[in-house]
């Protein structure tokens, strides 16, 4: 993989740092009057999801990370692995259940997701911003309450728990924002 000099740094560039692929979130250059310029860079570790900060001397070069983001269709999971398919090549990718912790509650079969590959191995999945989920368990709401004041927890078919308005009942399909885990309307 190619090396990148600090002058090529830009948001979204993928670099290897301490053995993990990272993506640049921000890059701030500071040049003291008499001194050498430096780049203060904020990055997201694509494996752990953590944000980290690192300061480079301007002109220093860093190994790039072979990271690709592909649109893929989620097919099914067999309990230990999740199956995705690249709709262009029909190639299938398997992702280990461990890597799905943050997103497993938002994956609906046939939905298109963004799968991040590092050295051709999938490392993370980003579900669509909104998904349609079915309520499988919730307390009965008050009859006639359509204003949606207050709310109650509801368990979805994927296992995720979302705060929904009181009028929602078991069996209904609701729209959920996967970035905030918030109710975003009915179908």
């Amino acid at each position, binding site marked *: 993989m190619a090396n990148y000099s600090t002058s090529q740094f830009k948001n979204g560039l993928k670099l290897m740092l301490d053995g993990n692929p990272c993506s640049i979130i921000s890059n701030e250059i*500071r040049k003291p009057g*008499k*001194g050498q*310029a430096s780049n203060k860079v904020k990055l997201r570790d694509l494996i752990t999801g953590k944000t980290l*900060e690192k*300061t480079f001397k301007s002109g*220093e070069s860093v190994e790039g990370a072979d990271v690709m983001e592909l649109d893929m269709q989620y097919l099914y999971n067999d309990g230990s692995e999740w199956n995705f398919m690249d709709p262009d090549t029909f190639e299938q990718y398997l992702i280990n259940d461990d890597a799905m912790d943050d997103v497993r509650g938002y994956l609906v079969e046939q939905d298109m997701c963004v799968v991040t590959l590092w050295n051709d191995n999938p490392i993370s999945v980003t579900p669509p911003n909104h998904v349609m989920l079915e309520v499988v368990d919730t307390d009965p709401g008050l009859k006639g309450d359509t204003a949606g004041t207050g709310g109650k927890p509801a368990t979805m078919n994927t296992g995720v728990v979302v705060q929904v308005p009181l009028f929602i009942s078991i069996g209904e399909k609701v729209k959920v924002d996967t970035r905030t885990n918030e109710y975003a309307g009915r179908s």
Partner: protein
Amino acid sequence: MREDLKKYSDFLQKIRTFFDNQSVLEVQTSALLNTPATDVYIDSLSMKLNQGIDLEQTRYLHTSPELEMKKLLANGSGDIYQICEVFRDNEQGSQNFNEFTMLEYYRLGFDIHQLMDDMVQLLKTLGIEGRVSKLSYAQAFFEYGDIDILNTDFAALKVIARTHSLSTDFEWIEDLQILLFTHLIEPKLKDLPLCFVYDYPAAQSALAIVEGKVSHRFELYINGVEVANGYDELRHANEYQIVFEQEIAKRRMLKKYTLDLNKGYLEAIQSSLPQCAGVAIGMVRLFSEINLK
């Protein structure tokens, strides 16, 4: 539009009146020089002249009027100031530009502490007031970084830098000191309206007088922004020669363009500079501090 121009024009006028009242003479020196700057991390813009008449020469735009003004000082000018455009190549960062306006002035018989006091008066006439803090470089590092900067060697500084996720890829200790200052100390200066940091480590002396472990240099930070850089000026040609030679050698190691020693300058100051202190001030940074109010 005209209102903004008027503001800047008034700002210039106030500066000129301030110096005029103290009999500091305004001068103009040449911006097109035969020899580039030798500072390790300041690059001159170079250009080819007179190609059309087969008399090709290379010339360099000044990165600061310092040396040209010092020629005047060595030849009896007395107190002088200059406001001029300066040019630097390979500048980067949101607050750095290839061309900017500099105010540079020299006061005979002053040391840096008298010069800092004088600057406070100048700032006051420009409407920049506020609590004045004076911190030695060592104090700043003790207070804000818990580091004994004057007594920590290169290897130990690298360990500290690593714990702060800072690069350690440096050839010389002063570069790492500067990086640590920029990233650990400078952000803490944001809450200080007017902060002078003085007595830099000897390794960062540039053209300032060295005494023991420190060089008598200072920088002014206004609300955390570096605005000025001043020195107790070296006086003798041989002292300048030593600094220039070191800087040229470092530039060569970094594979930056280099040129022979600036012999013209050394000859012009053979009679030595009078004891004096001088400072360079970034005019736009200063002006924007006034405009914030």
